[in-house]
């Protein structure tokens, strides 16, 4: 169980959540941020600071966004497009930095006007 960032983050990538995460478990893709399901400690700091309400605890993710529960995990557990190895457990997003790449689900999403 962990907090999950879903589709509303795409092309917004506000990063307020990254700043309040006490364990550095929110990683930056090209268009969206992803929470590491194993590194998250369920503290809930990220949920209220998201300007587009795109973060929920696993159990509270709306049905329409359920695909993002698995997709957050996929960002870490499967090799990202163009990469040979999965990210695995980097142990901190601050040291890793932005990855510049998204999961197929996110990169195939239509461009959002929200970030403009």
């Amino acid at each position, binding site marked *: 169980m962990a907090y999950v960032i879903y589709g509303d983050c795409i092309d917004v990538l506000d990063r*307020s959540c990254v*700043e*309040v*995460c*006490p*364990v*550095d478990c929110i990683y930056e893709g090209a268009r969206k941020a992803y929470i590491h399901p194993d590194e998250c*400690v*369920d*503290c*809930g*700091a*990220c*949920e*209220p*600071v998201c300007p587009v*309400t795109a973060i*929920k*605890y696993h*159990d*509270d993710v709306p049905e329409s966004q359920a695909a993002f529960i698995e997709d957050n995990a996929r960002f870490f557990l499967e090799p990202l497009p163009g990469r040979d190895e999965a990210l695995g457990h980097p142990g*901190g997003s*601050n040291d890793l930095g932005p990855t510049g790449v998204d999961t197929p689900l996110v990169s195939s999403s239509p461009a959002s006007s929200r970030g403009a």
Partner: protein
Amino acid sequence: MIPYRVAVVGSGPAGVYAAEALVRSRIDVSVDIYDRLPTPYGLVRYGVAPDHPRIKSIIVALQKVLERPQVRFLGDVHVGVDVTTDELGELYDAVVFATGASVGRRLSIPGEDLAGVCSATDFVAWYSGHPDHAQAAESFPLAAESVVVIGAGNVALDVARLLAKSAEDLTQTDMPPHVLDRLADSSVRDVHLVCRRGPEHAKFTAKELRELLELDHVATKLDAGLLPAGSEDPMTAANLKAFADLAAREVVDGQRTLHFHFWSRPVEFLEAGGAVAAVRLEKMQEVDGAVVPTGEVTELKAGMVVRSVGYHSTPVGTLPFDEDLGRVPHDAGRVLGPDGRALNGHYVAGWVKRGPSGVVGTNRACAADTVVSILADLEGRPPRGVAPDEVDRVLAERGVRPVTYDGWLSIDSEELSRGQVLGRARTKIPDWATLRRVGVPGVRRTSPRSSH
């Protein structure tokens, strides 16, 4: 190139995250983190509920900061006593006060000082093995069958949940043995949570409320009729759903019962035999957006009362302090003097800066904001160049022997082995003498790296 030197007072999340933001910044800086206690991590160690190990694991992230080569830990140093705030101001290029808010707010109603009425701050510190509270067990009459907890936040809920859980549920935690023994002898059957406003206003988080659904031996009672149909605010809606589930649930083997009382405020604590015996509650209602008393009064039996209605800070050394707000006046983290101007080189972060709000991570952004001010103020100003061991010399002259990070690792490893003997991950050392004996060994010995 001489690095800047910054002192951080307080090794809770705000202090450690301030140190992290400094060492990750563009300037060359070394940071000394002071704590009054021999042990680091503040409320993550002494406030986060012992049955919430996942949140406690934030310590792993804080530990990484303390292990950075630019960072030193100086535990068991009481700033304002062992070394003054002014002295720190002269020894460092900047001083960040992150001393938290450790005093529970009072209700200011009759009977508040009766035996058996305590603040959640003290009760939490006691069961967390805080060395200032090792002797405090008599303050908490767990022989009471009915306990009233006043407050509608997660601290109140932590206290209520721990009182409602069985001792077996808690043996796997890091609570010290004397605390577990007392909880095992507890006669508590009913725990009443008293909330001034309605379920839609309560500051509990849904995740903590849902946790109650998993407690097989704890029945939960609340008046489902008080639950509004829903809320546009997603977090309130999640709480209401959790309350509805709690109201609907049937517990077959309920050894204890947790009751939620909404729209109620305590107006007096009633005495019998020299100690609290009951709480007089008044029904509240909302009129034109204001919460007002109805005049309707009831009494609730209570052999013990825990008030959890917020915290305030205490003054630090000679630092300016706003008694009304219970915190240090500041502008973007810069401490403000009586004339309203920023004091040179003094900063605040965390609860002493913004009051007791938010969760652990809130302090990370808060500390980072303060560090932005520090960096701007240091811009163009060369480092003072005070030798790093100057403060060590000052402390040694006064007979102060700080617990270093290695000293803490000795305490840590002793706690882990004490836990291992009992089949638990960790058992805390709750007294000053042992913490000091283990933390400042006569001969420095190497200890294994900590694992949490």
